[in-house]
């Protein structure tokens, strides 16, 4: 049995304390010529987990109003959210992200709390559109919640009435950035 040398990953192991190191640094192969190189990647567990999480954001299909149509279009053939690993789920138990797409009324408010508490941890909330951000056009109405952040904690605010699919796309990418910066493993430990 010949002794194999493994490729050494430079740079990738150089993670900063805030966990912001990026995966996918240069691979230097040290294997024998002609032999397929077994790839080994060394990185921090946080980064690895975040990499997985960021590329499998399953969002809850929670479309209440106009923004819901743009949410549908974003999942459609042109913008195609699937390519970022973001697919919609019908049940909060299977989702990481609550996209509040549309106006929330007081009658709906309790249900939003319930849905939020049913999401699997760690969970994120994306307030899509002006209504979810601050009540939007309907801020002055007697029955509309002036911003979903008075019911649940919000991670990303996406302005627009309704936001374009490209904007929602960008919001998902920003959420990925946010996830990459998190030290999730530490949070679990204590």
């Amino acid at each position: 049995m010949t002794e194999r040398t493994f490729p050494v990953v430079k740079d990738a192991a150089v993670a900063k304390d805030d966990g912001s190191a990026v995966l996918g640094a240069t691979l230097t192969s040290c294997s024998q010529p002609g032999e397929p190189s077994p790839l080994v990647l060394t990185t921090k567990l946080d980064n690895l987990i975040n990499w997985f999480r960021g590329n499998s954001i399953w969002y809850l299909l929670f479309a209440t109003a106009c923004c819901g149509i743009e949410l549908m279009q974003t999942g459609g053939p042109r913008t195609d959210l699937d390519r970022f690993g973001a697919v919609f789920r019908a049940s909060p138990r299977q989702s990481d992200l609550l996209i509040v797409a549309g106006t929330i009324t007081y009658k709906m408010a309790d249900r939003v709390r319930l849905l939020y508490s049913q999401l699997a941890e760690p969970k994120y909330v994306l307030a899509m559109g002006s209504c979810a951000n601050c009540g939007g056009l309907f801020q002055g109405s007697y029955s509309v919640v002036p911003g979903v952040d008075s019911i649940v904690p919000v991670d990303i605010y996406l302005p627009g009435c309704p936001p374009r699919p490209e904007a929602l796309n960008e919001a998902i990418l920003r959420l990925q950035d946010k996830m990459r910066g998190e030290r999730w493993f530490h949070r679990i430990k204590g």
Partner: protein
Amino acid sequence: MEFRDIQERVHTGLGGSFEVQDEIHDPAIIVPKEQLRAVCGFLRDDESLRMGTLRIITGIDRPAKKDSTESGSIEVVYHLCSYVHGHTVVIKTLLDREAPKVDSVQDIWPTANWHERETYDLLGVEFEGHPDLRRIMLPKDWVGHPLRKDYEPPKEYHGIPTTREAVLQAPRVEKVSPAQHEPKSDEPPERFIQLNMGPHHPATHGVLNFLLETDGEILRRVKPDVGYLHRGMEKLAERISYPGTMPFTDRIDYLGAMFTNHGWAMACEKLFGVEVPRRADFCRVIASELNRLASHLIATGCLPMEVGAFTPFIHWLREREIINDIMEMICGARLTYNYMRIGGVSRDIDQATIDKILGWLDNFEPTIDEFNRLISGNEIFVKRLANMAVIPAEVAVGYSLLGPNLRASGVDWDVRKNEPYSVYGELEFDVVTGQGWRGSIGDSYDRYFCRILEMKESVKIIRQACDLMPEGPIIAPKVPKKPAANEVYARTEGPRGEAGFYVVSDGSDKPYRARYRMGSFTAMSVIEAVTPGLMLADLVALIGSLDTIAPEVDR
């Protein structure tokens, strides 16, 4: 029949003389509340009147003037219409503001059931003899009736601050405790299974809740619980000027925003007495019909998805993106257009846009046939929908169904044909009615296929309109700021049926009362009547075939 003839017929038929309010645009007969039921029954059953459809019930709060000794009143307005004779009438009854009570007419027109509940909820009018007078839009524990002029909203609701100042001062929400928020049914337990469907359910097209009572998998009773998207648009219109309400109408029906724009513009034009330039009318028709295509693409794409076929939906989204591009060229927005203005449109449709539209139509028309080969003839699809939830013509008329849902039941009624507005009178197209293509007339398949065929008619209309469009201005030169005191009702034929706009003006620059009548509201109320005996899974297909959307139901 003209209003005078109708008035005379009522007088001779019932032997009496009613007051008439004829200085307004659509004159109204004022009926004392004791005689309301007799008059309504007569209007419906008399051979020469046959007012089979109740369009809308509106409550108008008229509090006492400050230095007046008279007590205030609440008007309840009934807009009636006959599909047989094609005439309309408005009747009003005046109630005491302190204890407004009137007899229910829900047994005369079944659609009145929900309209009366809404009037009770928002204005506090009690309808005596109503079997189920509960709040419909607002939560059960809500206090007060918002459409009263002296209504004061609460400072907080279930711990949520409601005013802007309170929101800014409130601490950031970090933890959410869901303990007391499990939804509960207020029905007494029985041996049948009680099931809560919604308000968050992917197949309900937005947020609405169904309380189901099932025997195994057979539905015994379905009670729709709406109002989860009640945004109080009618109250907001009272605070904002006439042109300022235009963007709000976009959001009543986000899939058919052009039609709500158009309806509001038409109502205001009637009020202000403004003439629309001819080119603007053609711009409106082209934009509206493109919008109808976009809406029907969602409707006919979602229905297969609801019964398990995802691919057709993706096909239609592809086409819809192109309509969205065209809409952006026309008015700069993809979904909430805000395209129309009182007296015209905001931007012209230039030749480049017309070329793009015509080019796309040439591609799109064969796609409809391709779509039919893909799904409309698919055996599984047909079996799910044919003969399912049949709505006979008389039920459809009684519940005041509108648009494709009404026509699928075999009733030949299209506002574009029967009461032509804009330039629809000059354009040639057919009204599609249900033929029982795969089962019986008025089944879910008919409702689906009506929409497919209507898309072909829309294509025809757009081609003609592009061809006939004259040169000229696109907006009326001068629009007054304030209209005279008047009441108008304008209607357009939207993708979900007739969009009605009833506007009451008191001579100021803001509407005194605005009332929107939308197709999904009545479509939702018919569900309770047609579902007993269906399978649970059919309910989802039925909602899809009715093409209801939540903001239209709740406004």
